């Protein structure tokens, strides 16, 4: 790779399970900016079975749009030579099902949970968590490992110097299962041991012959210390060496890139962490894909990632239907639809995952499903992102937890400053208003929350770019990636029956005074751009907007491409909209300019 100061053109691709996206970043007048974008179907499957075909097609699209010649006989020209080629090429990937792992630990809520956090933080899908106390019998665990055939296993358990028998027992489960990798029978499955150092020799003697065993520092060297970084780094290394190397065409792709290929969720996590770090704020990020939905959060500097492996907008869209049910999807629709018709449409999207909604009705159905996929994924995230029990950890920004009360969720909706959405259904929504309301409806924010979206779904590429050129990544992120949609204001209400006033608002913008009163089951959207606004909110005595019931708030908030939403829609105890009135739903959509109905 050329000297970092000489880099002027960067090509980055993200090989998703459905689509391969390419972006071209160029340094123009001392500033890095996104200049062109191309995309093409991912080609890991028959008849192509070579990921590089999709990569080349997405690059050809950039060539056509930019007029810049990047390829020379199906090879990327690096470094650039005047107007040809690029200086750096990097890529992320989640194609081929991503990285699928099993993790094991002695105590389910302690070492096993730490192992799960390390695996998720590295960008993997955790297929199952084995623990000595998970109430499954020995042979059931053995069968589970044999059936699932993960790409990799992370084994942890015990503090350094402590009892070894429990973790050795877990190793005996692996030994008995004699697991085989998902891809390539000639290879041994990679197993990372990150447990009690006193047990390393025993683990080695049991697993060395049948697995590709790597021993790293203990994930819980002491009860009060969690140390995820060594395991996470080893997962990344083995992902490249074993999993990627087995997927069709990846050997070739790996030889093209100037930095290791990152799992897509790992790359998105990098960018989310950087937003939180740079602005010192609490952030929830979401990346909704075809197969999975990833939720990231940073609260009080603590990073968490969860992946909902079977909640997505195409391959696993029927699972959204299965988990939420017809009624939960239909409640977002401003029209009646026959249940059989709706379920068949959803099932057809599953079997033909690359299709797009042509009619407005199809778009509304798809965005209703997205609301449910996001809502369910966020519930899972809140359940997982909890503090450890009475433990103080060694922390890095990415994976440490601080000591709080036991098992309490770290996700505090009143503390949340910013929600960032990414993924096709949010980034490519025809109107930004649609992405805005989808996130408000599914995350149910409380108080004052900013909403933003990844402009064209490029957070994965910027995440991997940040590993080699952070300056370019952050510059493009601020300038071209993050679209500030606006602010949503959502009250907590004590008494939820009948129609009543919730709060009033007052502010001035552009020499004009804005005053209004928001009633229950009403909402108002004011189109204010991304500029600081000194807003005064006066809630009624049974309403809390973040400072307590009946407490006035004076705060600087920002509008955005959509504006400021004062949301008086009343949610039931589960945080779900209770309106069954299709006319009312239509009115909400029209008032927020989400659809013109």
């Amino acid at each position: 790779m050329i000297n970092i100061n000489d880099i002027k053109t960067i090509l980055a691709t993200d090989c998703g399970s459905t689509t391969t996206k390419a972006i071209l970043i160029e340094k123009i007048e001392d500033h890095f900016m996104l200049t062109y974008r191309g995309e093409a179907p991912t080609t890991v499957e028959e008849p192509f079975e070579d990921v590089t075909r999709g990569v080349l097609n997405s690059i050809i699209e950039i060539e056509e749009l930019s007029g810049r010649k990047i390829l020379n006989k199906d090879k990327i020209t690096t470094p650039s030579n005047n107007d040809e080629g690029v200086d750096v090429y990097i890529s992320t990937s989640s194609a081929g099902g991503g990285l699928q792992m099993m993790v094991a630990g002695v105590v389910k809520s302690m070492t096993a949970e730490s192992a799960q956090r390390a695996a998720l933080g590295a960008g993997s899908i955790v297929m199952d968590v084995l623990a000595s106390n998970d109430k499954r019998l020995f042979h059931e665990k053995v069968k589970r490992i044999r059936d699932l055939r993960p790409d990799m296993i992370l084994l942890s358990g015990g503090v350094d110097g402590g009892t070894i028998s429990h973790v050795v027992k877990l190793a005996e489960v692996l030994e008995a299962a004699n697991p085989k990798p998902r891809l390539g029978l000639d290879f041994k499955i990679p197993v990372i041991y990150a447990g009690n150092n006193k047990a390393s020799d025993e683990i080695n003697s049991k697993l060395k012959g049948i697995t590709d065993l790597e021993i790293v520092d203990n994930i819980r060297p002491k009860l009060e210390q969690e140390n995820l970084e060594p395991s996470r780094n080893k997962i990344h290394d083995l992902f490249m060496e074993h999993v990627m190397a087995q997927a069709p065409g990846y050997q070739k792709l790996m030889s093209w890139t100037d930095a290791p290929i990152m799992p897509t969720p790992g790359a998105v996590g990098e960018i989310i962490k950087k937003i939180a770090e740079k602005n010192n704020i609490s952030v929830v990020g979401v990346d909704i894909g075809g197969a999975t939905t990833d939720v990231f959060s940073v609260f009080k500097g603590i990073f968490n990632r969860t992946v909902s492996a079977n909640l997505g907008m195409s391959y696993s869209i029927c699972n959204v239907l299965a988990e939420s049910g017809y009624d939960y999807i239909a409640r977002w629709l401003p029209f009646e639809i026959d249940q059989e018709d709706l379920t068949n449409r959803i099932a057809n999207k599953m079997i033909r995952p690359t299709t797009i909604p042509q009619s407005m009705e199809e778009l509304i159905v798809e965005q209703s499903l997205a609301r449910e996929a996001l809502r369910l994924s966020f519930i899972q995230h809140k359940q997982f992102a909890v503090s450890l029990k009475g433990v103080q950890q060694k922390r890095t920004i990415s994976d440490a937890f601080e000591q709080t009360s036991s098992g309490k969720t770290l996700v505090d909706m009143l503390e949340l400053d910013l929600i960032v959405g990414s993924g096709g259904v949010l980034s490519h929504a025809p109107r930004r208003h649609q992405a805005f309301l989808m996130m408000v409806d599914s995350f149910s924010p409380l108080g004052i929350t900013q909403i933003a979206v990844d402009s064209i779904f490029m957070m994965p590429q910027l995440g991997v770019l940040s590993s080699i050129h952070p300056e370019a990544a952050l510059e493009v992120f601020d300038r071209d990636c993050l679209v500030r949609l606006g602010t949503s204001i959502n009250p907590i209400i004590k008494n939820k029956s009948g129609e009543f006033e919730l709060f009033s608002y007052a502010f001035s913008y552009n020499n004009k005074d804005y005053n209004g009163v928001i009633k229950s089951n009403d909402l108002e959207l004011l189109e204010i751009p991304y500029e600081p606004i000194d807003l005064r909110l006066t809630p009624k005595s049974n309403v809390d907007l973040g400072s307590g019931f009946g407490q006035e708030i004076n705060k600087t908030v920002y509008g955005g491409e959509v504006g400021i939403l004062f949301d008086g829609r009343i949610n039931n105890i589960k945080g779900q909209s209770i309106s069954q009135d299709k006319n009312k739903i239509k009115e909400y959509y029209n008032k927020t300019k989400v659809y013109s109905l």
Partner: protein
Amino acid sequence: MSKSYTPGLKILKNTKILKERRLPLKGDINCKVGDKVGNSTIVASTFIPGNIHMVNVINQLNIDAQSIKDYLTVKIDDLVKKDDIIAENKGMFGFFKTQVKSPIEGKVSNISSTTGQIMISEPDIPIEIDAYIDGEIIEIIDNEGIVLKSNGSLIQGIIGVGGEKNGELIFLEDNPNEYEGKIVVIKESINKSQYDTYSGKGAIGIVAGGFDYQSLSDILGYRLGVAITGTESIPTTLMVTEGFGDVQMSDKTYRILKDHSGKKASINGATQIRAGVIRPEVIITLPNQSDIHQDFNEDDLIIKENSKVRVIRDPYFGKIGIVKGLPSEPVKIDSETKARVAEIEFENNERKLVPRANLEIILE
């Protein structure tokens, strides 16, 4: 020029068919290159390890794990019967011995002096892989499986459930009397009650144009959340050629199948629509067929003017037409999405713009 590929199912009348038959674990190959095999010929076999039972010896004998060796009456790899003594203590003056018995018949596969447990494995379970279709072995994959070659018709469906089966092709429109062991082809969309009818009459496979999602859920007993199928234990394998809802099988698919009425066919419902797509299929092997059409090549999958296409999403779902134009600039469609589109002339001469992503090329 950028290429716009469309997803396409293989609907091939005469083609070369290659089938890889792999064991889940390494094992024995029972044939050699050049062998002619029938669909039921066992081409490879292996054993998968039997279930594991753990016996906690140290708890039962109240001893330390490290001293377990002193109490054993068996060693690794010994075969044991149920209730055979596998460990015992010395008791008092040779009396009052505590004995640990094997809970099953099997083999002692591990003795751990760390955890104090004896692991006994049930006998290994034999696994055999048949050829699935008639053909000739052209490659041996060392200890893992074989590749066999055949000629014939290959029809892929869009989704299926149920595993590999072999049977004679019959057609509902011919009002057959006998369904036992047969594969029934139905041009129209069917529901669970029709599926149950033919399954009840003994059909081992059903090929239909469409199906509805609720019926599929009813057959499986759960809602199919992710399209990964093939291991369902249902008596009748189902392959759907077009999709969910009221949709007919394409004429071409039906015609090819109809040409093989009464012939032996292989059907497999296994579907996996992610991470290496697998589509369900019906294969009719024609060993003596020499007039092999060239298999489609990559360029056939590119939408061009005059390509014959089918729309695979509402509002024109299932309609067939000819591509008349391919505007290079993205066009704002009814959903307000900007998409690359194709102008399609449908069979009734009506012309509509349809996103290219919603088209499936029909390979002639």
